Each structure stands twice: as structure tokens, then as C-alpha cells.
């Protein structure tokens, strides 16, 4: 009997180790696979040429990834600037100020927003955001624009990321012990001072990681952005110009992969770039989390 229990114990431990090693190995395997597929391109062009050039003419073997990298960064940055204040403030209100019933009402709303497929956000962006930018926002700034712009991509992306970031922030703020908050209030702090000095301070690491995951998600989002961002290969840093993010490059041109020489390696290299950039974003945010935790 004892023997049987020991065997079961051993077997279940092995299962757990196997599943965790799959998870640990997965990014490594994906990275290696992408590198192998992209290596033919790296043989004919140096990394500097690929990352520094702005000319994209695959039929003439010109593969410049700079417009796509900058396009991705720019759209993500805008969405981040739009999403962060909204998320932070509404998370604080929901967890610290709002009545419990309101929170119960908001939970399903956030879950629905998070669960909507990205193509719905894309269509909505084309129908609502794009005409709004071309008819109202751009004329307000005295610019003519079709509406298919980096700004449209940023707005749609921000709206898509808000439920994710918000959900994580709510979890973070809910873990802050009531005792700490009460202690600061009993010392005469106002409610806002309590939020500023206790809730945000104490939740710092969690807030940063919520934003980090939000950015990583925004960076890789494809369909919705592709539908509104204009997909033009150019480097312009105006909100009212079209851009071309990396994921859109892969999705749009997947079809030409077998029709143009080196094109499949080029797209795999784009995927590798995306992979590396998201890895870097995660590392940077890990570092910030580590810093804030060690400061506490």
C-alpha cells in the first residue's frame, strides 16, 4: 500500500516537472526556430544594414526594417500614454473609493472588454475612430488626414489594453493590507494622501509589472492595428501620418512568402525582431520591479 502511494507521488512530481520544463523551453525553442529560419537573410545582409535601412523593396533584395520597428514603437508609445492615466485612476477609484456594488458591476464589464476578439476592435476603429480623426481631430489641428493614422492605431490599441492593465491593477491594489491604510488615516492623512503614500507606494512593483505586460501585449497586437494604421512604409513622426508596425508587416505579407526569394527569411527575421523586442521590454520591466522591491 505504502509502495503504491510512493509511486503515485513520484509520478505526479514527474508530470509537474515535465510541464514546467515545456513552459521554460518554449520561448527558447521558438527563438531558435526563428533564428534558423531568418539566418539566410543574415548571411547576405549585416544586422546593421537590416536594422538601419529605411528602404523596403523585397523584389530588389532591399530589406530595411527601421520603418517597421519605429512604427511599432511609436504606436505602442501612444497607446501607452493614453492607457496609463486612465487605468491608474480608474483602478484607484474602483478599489479605494467606489462602493462594493459598483465594483461587482464593473468586473463583468472589464471581462467582456478583455474577451472581445481584436478584429471587432479593428472594425470599430475603421467605422468610428478613423472618420472621427479625419473629420474632427485633424481639422482641429489644421491638418488634412485620411484618418488611417498612427494616432488611430494608438487609440484602438489603448482601448484594447485598458481591460488587461486595469484587471491587473485592481488585483494589485486589492492585496494592500487594510491595516496599512487605516494606520495612515488614523495619523491624520486625507484619503488622497493615503492613496498617494500607501497604496501607490506599496503597490509600486505590481503597477510596473501590470504596465509592462500591457506594453508587451500592445506591441504584438496585429489585426486591429493593421486595419486602422495605414500600413505605409515611411518614417514620419506626425500623429496624422500612416505607420507600419512589425506585426502588420508579417500578417500582410504572409501570402508573398513563397513568391519572392528571401522573403520568408525576411518575415521570419521580422518575427525574431518582435520576439527580441518583447523580451527586452520584459527584462526592462523586471529590472524596474526588482529595483522598487529592493527599495521597500
Amino acid at each position, binding site marked *: 500500500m505504502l509502495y503504491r502511494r510512493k509511486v503515485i507521488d513520484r509520478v505526479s512530481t514527474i508530470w509537474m516537472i515535465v510541464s514546467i520544463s515545456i513552459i521554460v523551453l518554449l520561448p527558447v525553442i521558438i527563438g531558435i526556430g526563428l533564428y534558423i529560419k531568418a539566418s539566410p537573410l543574415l548571411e547576405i545582409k549585416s544586422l546593421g544594414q537590416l536594422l538601419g535601412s529605411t528602404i523596403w523593396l*523585397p*523584389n530588389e533584395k532591399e530589406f530595411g526594417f527601421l520603418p517597421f520597428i519605429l512604427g511599432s514603437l511609436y504606436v505602442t508609445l501612444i497607446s501607452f500614454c493614453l492607457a496609463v492615466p486612465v487605468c491608474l485612476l480608474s483602478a484607484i477609484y474602483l478599489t479605494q473609493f467606489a462602493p462594493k456594488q459598483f465594483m461587482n458591476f464593473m468586473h463583468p464589464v472589464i471581462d467582456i472588454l478583455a474577451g472581445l476578439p481584436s478584429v471587432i476592435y479593428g472594425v470599430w476603429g475603421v467605422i468610428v475612430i478613423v472618420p472621427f480623426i479625419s473629420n474632427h481631430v485633424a481639422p482641429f489641428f489644421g491638418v488634412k488626414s485620411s484618418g488611417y493614422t498612427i494616432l488611430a492605431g494608438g487609440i484602438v490599441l489603448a482601448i484594447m489594453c485598458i481591460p488587461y492593465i486595469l484587471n491587473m491593477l485592481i488585483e494589485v491594489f486589492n492585496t494592500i493590507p487594510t491595516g496599512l491604510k487605516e494606520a495612515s488615516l488614523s495619523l491624520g492623512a486625507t484619503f488622497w494622501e493615503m492613496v498617494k503614500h500607501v497604496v501607490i507606494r506599496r503597490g509600486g512593483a505590481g503597477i510596473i509589472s501590470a504596465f509592462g505586460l500591457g506594453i508587451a501585449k500592445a506591441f504584438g497586437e496585429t489585426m486591429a492595428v*493593421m486595419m486602422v494604421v*495605414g*500600413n*505605409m512604409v515611411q518614417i514620419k513622426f506626425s500623429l496624422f501620418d500612416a505607420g507600419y508596425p512589425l506585426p502588420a508587416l508579417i500578417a500582410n505579407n*504572409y*501570402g508573398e*512568402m513563397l*513568391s519572392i526569394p528571401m522573403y520568408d527569411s525576411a518575415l521570419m527575421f521580422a518575427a525574431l525582431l518582435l520576439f527580441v523586442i518583447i523580451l527586452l521590454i520584459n527584462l526592462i520591466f523586471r529590472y524596474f520591479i526588482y529595483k522598487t522591491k529592493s527599495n521597500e
Partner: protein
Amino acid sequence: MKRIKIIALALIAAILASSCASKSSKENTVSISGAFAIYPLVVKWAEEYKKEHPTVRFNISGGGAGKGMADALAGAVDLGMFSREITQVEKDQGVWWVGLTVDAVVPTISSKNPFLDSLKKRGLTRSEFKAIFIDKTIVTWNQLLGGANNDEISVYTRSDACGAAGTWALYLGGKQENLNGIGIFGDPGLSETVGKDPLGIAYNNTIFAYNLKTGRKLEGIEIIPIDINENGKIDLEENFYDSFNSILQAIGSGVYPAPPARELYFVANGKPQKEAVLNFIEWTLTKGQGYVKAAGYVPIDQSKIDSYLAKLKVQ
């Protein structure tokens, strides 16, 4: 607990049974993906074919010519729908094809375009289109039409790899990557966008520029006549854009230049092996041709059909 076990067992049995069944029906399934240009016709064909052969199943999806070619070469589908010239690189990869029908890409603008009347009288030549779409030497409407109004032309193109863009670019002497303009995903999206922008210009497959039911142009869309003989005005024989029938006639008789008129194909990775697929292709080239005109396409020459049928017979 026992009940759960029984349900679980029943589920497993059901899954196993269904997977066995799908194995035999797999031989009878024809999966197709690719060009938007020919998608409506293939759907129509599948409907009619199913009436005659109820056991055959179809799995048809759009996604653009590029996707059709990539899927077919990767073996993800039995047949890819393809709507531009097949390049040497693709032929080197062992692509097998048959032509099915002919249609065209037409230059489109919004019906709200302020210069519509003069554009319709004057038309645009191939080199003017090239200057707008590729060289960017014409950027305002008054460079074309004169006048003091400095309105810029907003150029739209397809963002996805597709036959319409490939064919339009070929007409202008380039590749899809040479076409400038804001990239919109999909043919329906492009006609929607250009219809809304009074200063916009784009190109569409004929079936996305006309309403098949009424035979008129889609609401909000107008077509820029091509000044084929480049004499600076649209002559009577160059003016065939009013109804769907008249433009199909012009494509069929060769008055409308090719490209932008082009053949539409089924492509596959080598000659298909499946009996059901071969039968379906043969049917589309014989009986299926009877539905081509009604669906809004131009039939291909009988001599070409014969050569494609011969291709099917070759071992």
C-alpha cells in the same frame, strides 16, 4: 462520480467515432482559399456542384491571392485561388495551375469627387496613373486638371499581398511594393474607404466596384475611365464603364487592356492527387463555365479551356 466517468467515456467514444468518419469524408472534401476576386464565383460553383454531387464537401475561404498561393504550396489547402500572373519563382517551386475565367482591376474614385465630370470626359492615361501611384510626380488634382485648387490626391492601396495590387502594379510597370499610398486591408475595405474620401483614388476588382444585382456601380464608387489611345479625351469606344455588362464586354473583346484585365486561376502544389478535386476542376472548366457570365466574369477562350483540360489528363 460514476456518472461523470460514463459521460467521459461516451465523449471519448464520440470523438473517436467522428474522427474515423472524417477520415473517409476527407477524400471527399475540397478545401480552397485565396483571392477575393474569384471567391464569389467559386462559392457559386461549389453550390451548383453540390447539387449534382451531394457527397462532396467544400471548405472555401478568402484571404487574398498571396494567401492562396502560400497555402497551396504549403499543402494547407487542395486548391488556391489566384488572381495575378504566376511568377517564375512560383513556377520554380512546382506550382500547378489552370485558368478559370477573366476579370479586371479598375481604377476607382469616390462619386463625391469634386472633379468627377472633367475626369470622366478626360480620362487618365497609363503614364498618369504611374505618376500618381508609383513615381509620386503627380500629387495634387490640379496637376492633372488645372485650376487653382491645391487639393492633394489621397492614394489608397491594398496592404495585404493580393492579385489586384499585383495586376495594377504590373499595368503600371512595377510590383505591389512599388505602389504608394495608405494600405487598407482587403478589397471590400478598399472600396469602402475610397468611396468615403472625395479626394481619394484606388483600384478594385470589378466585382467590388459594381453591384452584381443591379449591374450599376456600387453606391459611392465611380470608375476613372482609362484613356487607352492617349488622345486626351475619352472617345465613345473608350466609354464602357456605365454598366457591369458593358465593361465585361470590353474586357472580353480586349478593348480594356490586359493587364489590368487578367486571368484567374486555381493553383496547387503539383497536380492534385485527390479524385474529388480533379473532378471538380474538370467540372468548372466544362459545365461550370455556364455560370461564369451570370456571376459577373468573362469566360476564357475555348482553345485555352481545351489546353487546361488536356493538362488535367496528363499523368
